[in-house]
């Protein structure tokens, strides 16, 4: 259900790009999804086909590709990077809470592939 809402937002943005570039058919959308973004690629794929067939104009047969991005955090106290999935917000080296997420929260459209009419 949550992924469906995200798919609607993706379709909206891709359709805007398609219209701006006078594209007749978008054949593929490539997404970058971070490990801790809370978006499950499997569920995106599950609702993708239905959504593009029923809720898009230029994406009826559009394929979906998802590139997964690893989650990493940085500790401001000991200045080291660590694996966010293993340790969360607390640095595994010095137990500091003074950390932030560097990568892993992405839900981005990397690029789209369209039929070249020329």
């Amino acid at each position: 259900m949550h992924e469906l809402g995200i798919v609607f937002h993706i379709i909206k943005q891709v359709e805007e790009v398609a219209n701006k570039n006078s594209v007749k058919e978008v054949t593929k959308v490539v997404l970058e999804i971070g490990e801790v973004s809370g978006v499950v690629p499997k569920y995106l794929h599950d609702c993708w086909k239905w959504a593009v067939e029923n809720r898009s104009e230029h994406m009826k047969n559009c394929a979906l590709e998802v590139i997964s991005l690893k989650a990493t955090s940085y500790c401001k106290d000991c200045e080291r990077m660590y694996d966010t999935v293993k340790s969360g917000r607390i640095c595994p080296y010095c137990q500091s809470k003074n950390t932030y997420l560097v990568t892993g929260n992405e839900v981005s459209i990397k690029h789209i592939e369209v039929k070249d009419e020329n």
Partner: protein
Amino acid sequence: MEDKVKIIEIKKSVFAANEKTADDLREELKQKGVFLLNVMSSPGSGKTTTLVELINALKDKIKIAVMEADIDSDVDALTVAKKTGVQSIQLHTGGMCHLDAEMTSQGLNGLSNLDDLDLVILENVGNLVCPAEFDTGAVTSLTILSVPEGDDKPLKYPLMYQVCSLVVINKIDVLPYFTFDVAKCKENIKMRNPNAEVIEISALKKEGIDKLADWVLKQVKNWKENK
């Protein structure tokens, strides 16, 4: 002849368009001096009961309106209107599991005296996943976690506890009947969001409502002074 394929680079967050709308809405509300508070939780955590008590504690001090978001029905808006007397409207998300900034903006336009208000409380759809991902344009968010749900929720739904500035632990009157460990729960919240404040309440028994009301008043006051 095979079709040639052209690649168009986008490199943009899926949430970018919504975040832009949310930022515009925040700016508009700042000009008007209206504080928008987003309230999130799972279904059945006591959002509506908590809001009724909170509003009754605040309504003589500041001018308040409420927007209730649900997939369907108007029971929440009617309950709040009947028990508090403040303006209350129901937003239907049409099957969607969350509100986005555009829907919030439309809801605000449905309030009759927006410019005169100090505080608009948005009761988001009961759900621990999607509402956390879509910025509504609110100044800040609070998340309610009720005792029967268990103290491990911040571990299971991390984003919900990361995007809020306050976690309200509700239904503390039933603690003796559950294995809910308040200290453990606070630890779990801190792990996800070291800056989050925690207030324990029982909306039904009207315990801790004064603390929650003070927190909201302080947020509104600080925001108005810094604008």
